[in-house]
């Protein structure tokens, strides 16, 4: 467990600038929205909140899809994998690192949401449920990106991740909502995007549980592939 934690913390440290920029972006927008008449512009504030939640997922795909590539290109992966570490532990470390970044993001977004949305009647409990949805969606999206990046370059990985995450959404629109549970990033983010001040939405745990189970399956698949690829070759 300790090596996984070390790799995760190291990942966050290496990505500290984009992570910090994202947090300052959330904090800056929250501070700016306090200058508005929150009651009059509450729908705008909610829209901004939803946009930021989407950025979180996009950043997670970016982090997950580029982590292995950056390590291989810089050759830093060699000194790490030369230690007594299984490749699946290395992947776990990277995924946990993305999870930590997404966790910080979700916490900051939820915390600022309490200042802004909370002060104009948005349910605080529901807000934190939405943040949990964002966090799990970020983790699942990063796991898909990480799976592809074990054997593809980051551009291919990002493109395929985009396709993989959007197809269940399209199928769910055409054939019914249950298809949205196949990689439920779409379902989770739909919950966030449909949030309103009416507060009549149910807080269901199913999409979260299914997402976590699929996360484990993706991690297993990524580990299986990553155990079998050559890591010490040119990546371009």
């Amino acid at each position, binding site marked *: 467990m300790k090596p996984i934690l070390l790799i995760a913390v*190291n990942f966050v*440290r290496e990505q500290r600038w984009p992570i910090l920029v994202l947090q300052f972006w959330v904090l800056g927008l929250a501070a700016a929205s306090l200058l508005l008449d929150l009651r009059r512009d509450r729908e705008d504030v909610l829209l901004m909140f939803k946009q930021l939640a989407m950025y979180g997922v996009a950043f997670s795909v970016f982090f997950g899809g580029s982590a292995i590539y950056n390590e291989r290109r810089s*050759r830093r992966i060699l000194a790490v994998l030369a230690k007594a570490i299984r490749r699946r532990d290395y992947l776990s470390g990277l995924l946990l690192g993305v999870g930590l970044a997404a966790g910080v993001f979700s916490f900051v977004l939820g915390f600022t949401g309490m200042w802004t949305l909370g002060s104009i009647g948005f349910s605080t409990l529901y807000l934190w449920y939405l943040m949990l949805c964002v966090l799990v969606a970020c983790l699942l999206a990063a796991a898909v990106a990480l799976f592809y990046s074990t054997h593809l370059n980051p551009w291919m990985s990002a493109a395929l991740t985009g396709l993989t995450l959007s197809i269940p959404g399209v199928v769910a629109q055409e054939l019914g909502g249950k298809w949205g549970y196949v990689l439920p990033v779409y379902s989770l983010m739909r919950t966030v995007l449909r949030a309103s001040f009416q507060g009549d939405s149910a807080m269901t745990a199913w999409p979260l549980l299914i997402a976590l189970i699929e996360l484990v399956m993706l991690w297993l698949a990524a580990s299986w592939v990553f155990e079998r690829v050559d890591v*010490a*070759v040119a990546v371009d």
Partner: protein
Amino acid sequence: MPPPAIQFTEITKDYRALFRKRPVRALESFTLEVETGEVFGFLGPNGAGKTTAIHLAMGFVRPTAGVGTMLGKPFGHHATRRRVGFLAENVALYHRPAENLVRFYGALNGLGGKDLDRSARDILDRVGLLPAARRNVAKFSRGMLQRVGLAQALIHDPDLLILDEPTSALDPVARVAVRELLLSARNRGKTIFVSSHLLSEIELICDRIAVLNHGRLVRLGRTADLLESRERAQITARNLPAGAFPGGAASDGRVTFPVGTPEVRSTLEKIWFLGGEVISVNPERRSLEQLFLEITSGDSDFHKTREHS
């Protein structure tokens, strides 16, 4: 008897690429055993397959055919790497203070607590970086980076050291220090597998050497045996008349000169006939550089590039 420290058995490695029709063969039917407790030099021109062989042993790449073991376990066995220290060619490390970095790599290998603190400071001292322990390695020279790389490879006191060009960026003083570090590790029973283009270093520290060319093993043996020429000998004699043997080097009344091995007997008879006294007859010793050039002459990337241009 302990198992070989590293064993390659009939290993072939091909690199394939998406848009390349034919794979590139980096190693072909490569077989080699590195015994426990020896310092083994691994030589070859650029592109010979040395780094591929090292990466196979470390489990970074998988063989296309053949098998290999490291410390008795198959290549890539993660727990075995706890007993291995590895320094990559063109060492690449995270940007953070040297001591924190070495502690990070030590912790990845299972060290912790006071052991880790003590080992980190001790190894930084041994590679001469203790005064710079709190400086970020991003600001280090290439030679300093290489020493940090060595420190992270040695921090857990490994049984087997695999070093890819460990002294290429070091100045002569640091090179001597690293040589002493490696010899002290050998004296404590550690096995050292070192790939280098600094042939004088290899000649000084290695018990055995292997030369790789075009992915094939072309020479293997004890360093002393390989450097001794079978074709030529060196004779030292005294009380010889001046100019009796052209090309001889005279010093303190002694003359030393080379002869072809088939002519040794007739030359000795001539010395006795002239009233001289033979002091020694030794196989002529060539340098590792001469041997290397004999084996690989015209085969390096450098020669190929020149031929193309």
